[in-house]
């Protein structure tokens, strides 16, 4: 039977790598201990956020249920973002290198399994575990809806940013694993890159803000999932006149003075989003204007919406990592371009251009 026929025959079957990884990963207590720790940590963070959001109540300050909901939502979303970005590479840095280290790699590539099925299998099995963590967190996260203050749009935006960040982070681990061939080295490379992206761009935005009155360039915000999530959460509506919760969309709103504005980060009435780090995460998201409100405070412009650009950057990064890893795992002629590469490049470029024109994000 020809290779093509063999490939066609099993292409309809479940990916062998996924079957094997799921069989072995879920054995023993390790996976369940991590899941329990993850949920306990998230629960404790949620409770701490709740206590913090309601701390002013004892001093007689009015607290709106929506404020608690928004604080919980934002805090848990950032917590989830950090956790998946940090956990995903831990699951994938050994994807290829551990096969080399435990001397199973040659036996694996000497089978009929194509390189892309091998990589997909590794990615899907890692992501299925991350998905398990995220799905297990849903009941905890849904507590937010008891308090209100958030919209479905914000939930979906945050979910898109978190899920794509997890996929990119997992793909980064697989890329480092395939390129370095050593799990320890792959872990160092992955976490250094993550540190540089998350911390480096925030530091860059901070330095820019301190040294220039111009808005922080999109190039310093869009590559960072933290800024992307902050730009999405930053459009949450806060309490307005009479303490009513507005449902006004951010882009339809008239910029307000910082003293009486409704942007969550700047809302003096509620004290803003009341969790540690928000001011740092939202650097560059709220550009100051040169106008002043009736109360003499500078008017804050509407939040920068960078999350859509971030999603495109994450997708592109994933594709580049996947392409490089795909070639790195090949036993022969690793870096020879193939027709598949050309097809992938063409389809990706056309899709992105089409998307860009259709939505008008770039033009």
């Amino acid at each position, binding site marked *: 039977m020809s290779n093509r026929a*063999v*490939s066609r025959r*099993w292409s309809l079957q*479940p990916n062998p790598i996924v079957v094997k990884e799921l069989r072995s990963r879920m054995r023993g207590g390790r996976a369940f201990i991590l899941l329990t720790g993850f949920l306990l940590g998230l629960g404790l963070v949620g409770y701490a956020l709740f206590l913090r959001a309601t701390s002013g109540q004892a001093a007689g300050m009015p607290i709106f249920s929506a404020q608690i909901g928004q604080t919980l939502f934002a805090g848990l979303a950032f917590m989830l973002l950090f956790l998946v970005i940090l956990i995903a590479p831990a699951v994938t840095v050994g994807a290829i290198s551990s096969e080399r280290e435990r*001397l199973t790699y040659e036996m694996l590539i*000497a089978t009929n399994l194509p390189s892309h099925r091998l990589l997909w299998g590794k990615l899907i099995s890692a992501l299925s575990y991350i998905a398990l963590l995220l799905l297990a967190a849903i009941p905890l996260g849904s507590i937010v809806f008891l308090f209100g203050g958030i919209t479905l749009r914000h939930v979906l935006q945050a979910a898109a940013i978190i899920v794509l960040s997890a996929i990119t982070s997992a793909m980064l681990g697989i890329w480092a694993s395939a390129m370095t061939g050593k799990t320890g080295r792959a872990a160092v490379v992955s976490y250094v890159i993550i540190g540089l992206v998350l911390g480096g761009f925030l530091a860059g935005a901070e330095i820019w803000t301190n040294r220039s009155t111009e808005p922080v360039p999109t190039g310093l915000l869009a590559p960072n999932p933290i800024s992307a999530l902050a730009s999405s959460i930053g459009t949450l509506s806060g309490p307005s006149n009479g303490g009513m919760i507005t449902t006004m969309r951010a882009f339809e709103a008239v910029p307000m003075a910082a003293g009486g504005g409704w942007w969550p980060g700047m809302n003096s009435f509620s004290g803003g989003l009341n969790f540690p780090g928000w001011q740092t995460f939202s650097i560059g998201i709220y550009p100051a204007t040169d106008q002043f409100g009736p109360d003499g405070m500078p008017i804050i412009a509407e939040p920068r919406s960078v999350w859509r650009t971030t999603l495109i950057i994450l997708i592109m990064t994933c594709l580049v990592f996947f392409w490089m890893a795909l070639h790195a795992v090949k036993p022969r002629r690793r870096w020879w371009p193939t027709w598949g590469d050309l097809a992938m490049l063409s389809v990706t470029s056309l899709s992105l251009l089409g998307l860009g024109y259709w939505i008008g994000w770039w033009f």
Partner: protein
Amino acid sequence: MSELAIQTVDLLRRYGKYTAVNKLNLKITLGSIFGFLGPNGAGKTTTLRMLAGLLEPSSGQVFLHGQLIQKTSTAAAIVGYMPDFFGVYDDLRVWEYLDFYARCHGIEPAKRKSTVDGLLDLVDLSEKRNAFVQHLSRGMQQRLCLAHALVHDPKILLLDEPASGLDPQARVELRELLRTLRDMGKTIILSSHILNELEDICTDFGIMARGELLAQGSLETLRQRSRPALQIKVLDDLDRAMRLIAAQSGVLRVLEPAEATPMLIEVEFDGDEQQASQLLLNLARAELPIADFHREDDSLERLFLQLVNNHGLEERV
């Protein structure tokens, strides 16, 4: 070419300036058990990896059953490969291990169970079906690894040092298993440094040293290439003994003693028994202290050493 299971044409592999395999022209017939012999660094593993499609040759060609190998997948369909060093996946049961490789080879679900059961039976691991692979003994893991190479019923088996690390009992079992596979019509290529193990089981041999194929063929063919030899051990006066031996009739060449056996002289000798007797008598008359004097046997080990040593001498010259 169709009569050949494997043919290589000027196969060459370089690592930088180092040539691991040099213009290898190998011909292995269908259904044979081919023993690949050579000292460490001879290029056996590199050759096997190129045959398995896992390593790109620097130049030259590999034909498996007449098919030119240009992609790993082409070789994977024809070849079952067992590396010299291999690992196992933890937390997988024995049947799951074979099931995984069956899936990787695209075996249909309906056939997978019977394939796994058949292989477990073949390698005598049916009783360990539900054991975790990391808990198997070394010999059992070796047999399991051999089973993994058979999962897609390949026509050619490439086994790199399959007997290394096995106890004598496990070696006997492996030898029996290889005979069974030969009876099933497989062409088997195995490399080993345990020469007497190969002598019993292989139908053909290839001897490699420093990346070159020194000789190839059946044991009889190789014996014809070898020269008979005498081994003479003296206790003292080595130089005088070597000069005297070199002057005797029937002596073709006197080899320098190896470092490990500094007083043992190997003599290439094509004389008859009368001449051998005269040689011994002359040594005795010269009052040289002879501790041992014997004709060498025709074992594979001696053939191997002779070819490899001669190759080393030729290179130095």
